[in-house]
């Protein structure tokens, strides 16, 4: 083990979720034996979010919070947690993270504060209206479904789609309101978006496209309906707002840490260094140039990305002088489960051409081309195939091969 950065004795990680936890674990794995302090706004030990919109909404499973690591495991790793303690500011001169009236000093810092859902204007204080990001959000949604709520999801993104799916699985009415004419067309493209729309319709979800929300109706402080800007009202007992998230960087606004002009995420290099020496970032909060995709600046909201970046940020934060700093070499990957279908995506949808091979529905393979390169792949219900395509995304000049393999796999499964 090479000598660690002289003077680095305390690693502070702000954000006690997936990226933050992985940062702590990877710090220990590098053999580093200094202090680790994990600061989190939520009262809970780090837990996993994907189940919040999947298993935890199912009436057959429990909604208990199972942390990713137990208190004992964290103690074993020598990680001090400061939970229920949001960071309120950053003093880079004094090397301190401000926590309201107190502060914690750092020698190296990893920012892993993730993202928070956008709120619907005018919805604050109306019962029955929520986002879905935290365990308590999931409990609220679940309770409403248990009570047989008529559900309206605002925004046809992946999480919103999973919520509609959970409602339909219980036989409850579900409506999705989406401003775009085709759901997910911005993130996946129009044709795959249309396939996703059919998944909703086939499951009996009422999909209202090309229409916005102009307000909410409520009685006695409880929501009763969603008013659309075409003048119609959809009755609702539960309204889940899924119109996107923004990086949780309010606490960094007055600091010299450079933030993205648009969404205020933390701007990082390919090694996850921020603009301030000694400060690194990881997960949903971080923008980084992806060398694999022409240096495109990406901010991903995917589980595997948060896990991978958390580990990398801590390793680089603690690397000794002269030690090699690792760069991200990521092929983005995420999955989403709706109505018993599994959608999986590898790579990037920013492409010159999008081709759907096979059925325009379950079993589809959608290929995204950039130049002569396979840049991305979406599969529906093909758990066996997706990672084989991931390998092709890594190969230069892989487009023709991808078309060939996709046709081959579709024939094999026909």
């Amino acid at each position, binding site marked *: 083990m090479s000598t660690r950065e002289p003077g680095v004795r305390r690693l502070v990680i702000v954000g006690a979720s997936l990226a933050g936890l992985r940062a702590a674990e990877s710090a220990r794995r590098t053999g580093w034996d200094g202090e680790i302090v994990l600061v989190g706004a939520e009262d809970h030990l780090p837990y*996993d979010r*994907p189940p919040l919109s999947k298993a935890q909404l199912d009436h057959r499973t429990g909604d208990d919070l199972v942390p990713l690591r137990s208190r004992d495991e964290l103690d074993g790793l020598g990680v001090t947690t400061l939970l229920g303690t949001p960071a309120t500011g950053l003093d880079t001169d004094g090397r301190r993270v401000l926590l309201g009236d107190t502060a914690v000093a750092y020698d190296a810092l990893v920012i892993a504060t993730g993202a928070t859902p956008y709120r619907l204007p005018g919805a604050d204080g109306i019962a029955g209206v929520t986002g879905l990001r935290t365990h308590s959000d999931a409990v609220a949604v679940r309770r409403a479904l248990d009570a047989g709520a008529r559900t309206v999801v605002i925004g046809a993104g992946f999480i919103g789609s999973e919520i509609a799916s959970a409602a339909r699985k219980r036989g409850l009415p579900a409506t999705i309101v989406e401003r775009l004419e085709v759901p997910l067309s911005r993130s996946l493209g129009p044709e795959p978006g249309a396939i996703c729309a059919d998944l909703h319709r086939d499951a009996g979800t009422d999909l209202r496209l090309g229409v916005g929300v102009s307000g909410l109706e409520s009685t006695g402080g409880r929501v009763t309906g969603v008013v659309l800007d075409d003048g119609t009202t959809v009755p609702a007992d539960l309204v889940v707002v899924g119109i996107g998230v923004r990086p949780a960087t309010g606490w960094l606004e007055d600091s010299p840490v450079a933030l993205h002009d648009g969404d205020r995420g933390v701007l990082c290099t390919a090694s996850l260094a921020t603009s301030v020496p000694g400060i690194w970032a990881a997960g949903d909060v971080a923008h980084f140039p992806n060398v694999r995709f022409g240096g495109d600046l990406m901010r991903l909201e995917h*589980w*595997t990305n948060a*896990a*991978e970046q958390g580990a990398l940020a801590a390793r680089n934060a603690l690397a000794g002088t002269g030690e090699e700093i690792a760069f991200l070499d990521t*092929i983005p*990957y995420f*999955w989403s489960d709706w109505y018993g279908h*599994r959608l*999986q995506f*590898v790579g990037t949808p920013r492409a010159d051409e999008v081709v759907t091979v096979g059925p325009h529905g379950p079993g589809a393979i959608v290929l995204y081309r950039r130049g002569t390169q396979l840049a991305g792949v979406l599969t529906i219900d093909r*758990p*066996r195939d*997706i*990672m*084989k395509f*991931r*390998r092709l995304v890594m190969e230069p000049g892989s487009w023709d091969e991808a078309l060939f393999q996709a046709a081959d796999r579709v024939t094999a*499964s026909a």
Partner: protein
Amino acid sequence: MRIDVDRSRCEGLGMCEAMAHEFFEVGDDGFVVVLDEAPDEGQRAFIRAAIDSCPVSALSLRD
């Protein structure tokens, strides 16, 4: 060294295959198949990384 799969946990997400397709493959039923259950000691770090990448901790190594 042996690779164990907890089939009740595996969700067929395929990260293990992405990291080490020589050792893991997701089948049509959406569960992982371990292609070589008793791999060479020299592969330990490589396999460890794949096991750690599993989002639902379905994989483990046994000596």
